[in-house]
């Protein structure tokens, strides 16, 4: 008649297989963090964040060490909150800029550490920031003349 044992084993095996596939899909491929790395938050104020999105990577020397947690408008400036891995120490004169990975790539925050003795603590602000580059702006400045260019350097 009906094989009770076989059905139970089949159902159990299916559940295990399905959950394993689910786990692999989520953690390995989807990047779900089971134990998020300890991180501390820093603030940075930009005049233009361009295409920067939430959860965009924060990189030092091209290596991802954090992500963008929040982007808010404060006093007509973009106030960005960065979550940086606790193991990375950044000096107080770090420069934050918004770079693009390749011509069509995503915007990310690039940090260039300075040479100061003190390090930034959690919740502190990165004071020197550079806004996002606008490619169209650059092209028009190049194409339509040098009205705003600095005077040429004088050779001795």
């Amino acid at each position, binding site marked *: 008649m009906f094989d009770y044992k*076989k059905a*139970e084993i089949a159902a159990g095996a*299916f559940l295990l297989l*399905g*959950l394993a*596939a689910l786990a692999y*899909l989520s953690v390995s*491929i989807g990047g779900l963090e089971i134990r998020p790395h300890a991180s501390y938050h820093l603030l940075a104020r930009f005049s233009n964040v361009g295409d920067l999105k939430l959860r965009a990577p924060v990189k030092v020397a091209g290596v991802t060490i954090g992500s963008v947690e929040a982007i808010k408008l404060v006093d007509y400036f973009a106030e960005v909150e960065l979550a940086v891995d606790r193991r990375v120490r950044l000096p107080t004169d770090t420069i934050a800029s918004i770079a693009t990975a390749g011509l069509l790539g995503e915007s990310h925050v690039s940090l260039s550490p300075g040479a100061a003795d003190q390090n930034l603590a959690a919740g502190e602000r990165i004071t020197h920031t550079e806004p996002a580059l606008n490619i169209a702006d650059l092209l028009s400045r190049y194409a339509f003349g040098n009205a705003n260019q600095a005077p040429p350097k004088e050779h001795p």
Partner: protein
Amino acid sequence: MQSALGAMSDTAAAPTEITAARLLGAVGRSVFRLLGHAGRLAIFMGATVTRPIHRRFGGWELVSQLSFVGAGSIAVVTLSAVFTGLVLVLQGYGALVRFGSENLVGSLVALSLTRELAPVLTALMVTARAGSAMTATIGNMAVTEQIDALDALAVDPLKYLVLPRLLATAVALPLLAALFSVAGIAAGYLLGVNVLGLDGLAFMSHVRSSVEWKDVWVGLCKALVFGVVIAAIATFRGVQTRGGARGVGHATSRTVVETAVLILCGDYVMTALLF
């Protein structure tokens, strides 16, 4: 002669004559029929899901349904996934190699699968296999009056027949969709690396970087909703079957068609809402 013919029945008189009034009447009747159908389905589902609140439900039926819907569908889901992944890589490679971005095919395959194709195709396969079987089984019981017999024995047919199927399908579908995604990506990986000469590590690194948790999660939500839709329509059509063997066949084909259409429409709605 004319009047006798006309007096036989309204619709028998000049049956090919299409008048505006007839068309309007037909449209109106279908709208009302659809509304009535949707209402009956809603009441049916509402009655079913409120069951556990009264008493505990039989575990054995659930296990057997899980084994049938879940474990039984693994083969067809894996097979569909493998060939879907292969086709995606093949077509994607052909399109992307022109821009020198053939390594992006990993992202293409992974995103298409996890976001859209895995939930939808899994649901369609499960409908074809398990949905039709549910309708046929329950429909057969309906036309041979076995459901009335259950009622007479004070066994609640909703609790005994419908609820286990509903729960089993709702649980099985997200897991099957996850399986579909993994199998499709794996098959695409094997084809890309061994036949098309892509770099395996680049492929997987593109897959990992482009798929976010949100893509996976939304795909699973879709699969869950589709699972509920499949079980709801399949069991409802089964219970509503009338008319002997022919009625069972009719109900089964209607189940598959209605479920498939609802899945595709629901996919659009959920994509628009959740992405």
